[in-house]
């Protein structure tokens, strides 16, 4: 697995450069990662910054000028987004370029230069972002924040997580909050930009048909930032306490379908449990169409179209969501509780266990199928200390039924939220 691949890591002082060279693809993936401990009061300004960096630069004075250059560079696709990874706020600035073979000589350097222009040469004068651009992005953000909760399932999950533990970074709204938005000025945004560039931990990943030494020189020349940073603590969340009895609440909205969102806390686990047993537990419980939840709630009782569980390993959480009729609320919750209990009682077969392992392994095998996937795999090595893929495939085989039962005993049902659809037909 991962044949014909060569990984090189360079310590560049203010950042680390990770080059994964392979001739397997027609495209080259590039990611510049920034990370720092997550703070609720920073998510809004971080999202603002993300958006304004893609709106104009020192050289390209409008979105239109940027878009024209993107097309001239064979539609080089650039994006930026932040996410919450356990205790950290991570911002990934990424690009996908074509292999030079399919374009023209000098394309690679030109594209990387263009990509870094957005990050390193913002449209700033007199210590502030340009006023008109600032205003444009702000209007856009107000709409984005307002409409980000329009999708019922997203809204249900957000609400549920805020009730589960509002101090947990995963419960922060990644697009930010209107009240925080009002406090941001073109000056404070630029101050924050400098702060991010100088104090975030930075890792740059590039994967494709590239020469490591050439990349090292290129980034030395183009990525000119002079500060030193050191890694701080772990990404992994440890919950302080659990509820003895789960907490449930309901909110009504003018919708045709009701969304059920359930959160469970996962208490202290060994690395083996966290990295292996948890995945197997989740696959058996609600990971796919063959899971207990899908088979019982959807197939046997026809209560829903979607139902699944998600294992948020870094956040020590297990989430369950389903779309149901409001009349079936009690029945659905009781069936779900029964499945959680069945896991504790070991009410699943060796066959299901083996199947779950296969699904896990199959997932591992595709971790090297595209430049973006390969980069994500390396990010997880660097940030999360996970085992290498080959080791994972061996270790997952060691998970026993007893391990899963033991894990199940540490799953604490915490919050049950129903977004009740009360639209009249």
């Amino acid at each position, binding site marked *: 697995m991962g044949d014909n691949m060569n990984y090189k890591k360079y310590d560049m002082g203010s950042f680390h450069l990770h080059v994964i060279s392979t001739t397997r693809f027609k495209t080259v993936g590039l990611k510049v990662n920034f990370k720092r401990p997550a703070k609720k009061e920073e998510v809004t300004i971080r999202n603002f910054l993300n958006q304004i960096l893609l709106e104009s630069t020192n050289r390209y004075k409008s979105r*239109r000028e940027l878009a024209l250059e993107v*097309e001239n560079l064979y539609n080089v696709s650039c994006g930026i987004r932040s996410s919450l990874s356990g205790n950290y706020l991570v911002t990934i600035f990424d690009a996908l370029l074509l292999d030079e073979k399919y374009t023209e000589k000098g394309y690679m350097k030109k594209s990387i230069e263009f990509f870094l222009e957005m990050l390193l040469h913002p449209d700033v004068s007199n210590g502030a972002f340009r006023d008109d651009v600032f205003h444009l992005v702000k209007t856009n953000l107000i709409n984005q924040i307002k409409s980000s909760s329009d999708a019922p399932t997203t809204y249900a999950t957000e609400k549920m997580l805020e009730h589960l533990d509002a101090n947990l970074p995963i419960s922060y709204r990644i697009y930010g909050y209107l009240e925080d938005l009002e406090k941001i000025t073109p000056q404070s945004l630029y101050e924050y930009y400098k702060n991010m560039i100088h104090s975030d931990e930075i890792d740059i990943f590039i994967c494709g048909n590239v020469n490591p030494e050439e990349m090292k020189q290129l980034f030395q020349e183009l990525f000119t930032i002079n500060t030193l940073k050191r890694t701080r603590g772990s990404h992994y969340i440890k919950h302080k306490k659990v509820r003895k009895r789960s907490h449930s609440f309901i909110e009504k909205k003018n919708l045709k379908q009701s969304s059920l969102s359930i959160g469970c806390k996962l208490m202290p686990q060994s690395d083996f449990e966290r990295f292996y047993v948890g995945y197997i537990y989740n696959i058996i419980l609600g990971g796919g169409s063959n899971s207990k939840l899908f088979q019982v709630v959807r*197939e046997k009782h026809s209560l829903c*179209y979607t139902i699944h569980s998600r294992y948020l390993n870094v956040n020590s959480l297990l989430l369950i969501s389903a779309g149901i009729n409001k009349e079936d609320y009690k029945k659905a919750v009781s069936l779900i509780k029964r499945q959680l209990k069945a896991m504790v009682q070991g009410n699943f077969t060796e066959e299901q266990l083996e199947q779950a392992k296969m699904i896990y392994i199959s997932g591992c095998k595709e971790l090297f199928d595209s430049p973006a996937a390969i980069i994500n795999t390396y990010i997880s090595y660097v940030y999360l200390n996970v085992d290498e893929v080959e080791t994972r495939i061996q270790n997952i085989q060691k998970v026993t039924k007893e391990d899963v039962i033991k894990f199940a005993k540490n799953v604490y049902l915490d919050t049950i939220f129903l977004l009740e659809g009360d639209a009249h037909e």
Partner: protein
Amino acid sequence: MNKIELRGLDTYVYTEVLESGLQIFVVPNENVNKTYVTYSTKLGSVYDEFVPIGEKDFIKVPLGVAHFLEHKVFEQEDGTDPFEFFSSHGASANANTSNYKTTYLFQTTDDVKENLEYLLHYVESPYFTDENVEKEKGIIEQELLMYADDPYNVLYEMTLYNTFVEHPMKYSVGGTVESIHKITKEDLYTCYNTFYHPSRMFVVVTGNVKPEEIINIISEHESKRSILPAEPVKIKLVDEPDEVFKNHEERVMEVSIPKVTVAYKIRLDAFNDLSLRDIKIYLSQLFSLQFSDTSLYVEELKKKELIDDSFAINTVYTDTHAVIMISNETNYVNEVVKAIQEGVKQLHVTEEEVERMKKTLISSQIYMSDNIFRMNNFIMNCMIQDGEINTNKVEEIKKMNLKDMEYVLNNLDLSNSTVSVIQTPRKQK
């Protein structure tokens, strides 16, 4: 087995047609571990009136039958669950129905042979009973209600409903809660027997495979069924007028920002000098030029703060018409509708724009050829739209020119359009 080259993409497609009429397409890619297999029939939601196999007269089936059938094909007489089979062989399976086709699929890194044989087996062994058909109605009803709460989906379906008068493209793929309750196991068997005949079906395999092996597995499996090729299914032709069904509709939903679509219904035979493929590309590019980030017109609208993001362009085709949908989210619905209507009157194109557009289109072909899912979709779309693989797409793009684009522009009739709006509960201004 035939080997054809997708020129300019360093990619080869291996093809075979079996005696039964089943077509097979394999695009090997040894640089990935995964394999993606799709098994499709040319039955989509729009085929609601046809002559069943072995009969003479047209019948009409309830809306949403193709999608209902897709759910029920998973039902097996011996009680086995196809999802369970795939899971236990390391694969993940799914299915989907669109306007023109139904597709059963799986992706895997292991046991391609076993999974492929099983895919063929379960799709080819229908088992519908009154009881299992009844049970599915609850699940599909929940699926339809889920879509009915999605404002983007509602806007899209509203637009199509108001654009078409006769064509079944008017209706949602899943049908309605009312129509699905009318569906019987007889309807399902009629559609199944007519449309799930090998002559109307094709398999596309992309990923880490050897073409000969795949073709052997499929031909061996299919030869056991000894089915003879069938005549094409007679489908009721629809006489769709150029006018739209309704010019304007507004609905209120739980959204924070209103959403608007202006759709133009355009006759395809207005551009007879060009091939259908060229017409489609020119049409969608013409509108993109005016309504995307590279447009001066969009930049002006942003400066006036009428919009804060560029427009989304979506295109739908029937045999006779194209529907170009231009959408945005805005608090200034009336102004933005006017801006779209004004904007289409000013469509224009320059030599430089054509050249930039070609770079973008070519690069999208290269990205596509590096991705087994997009490649598989490309082959499926070729089969549904053209009935053959387009081996020359990159060359076709390179040949695009200002003269042809101006020809499309000059023959464009924009007099038939419809406006659809999703409003917030209380109108915001």
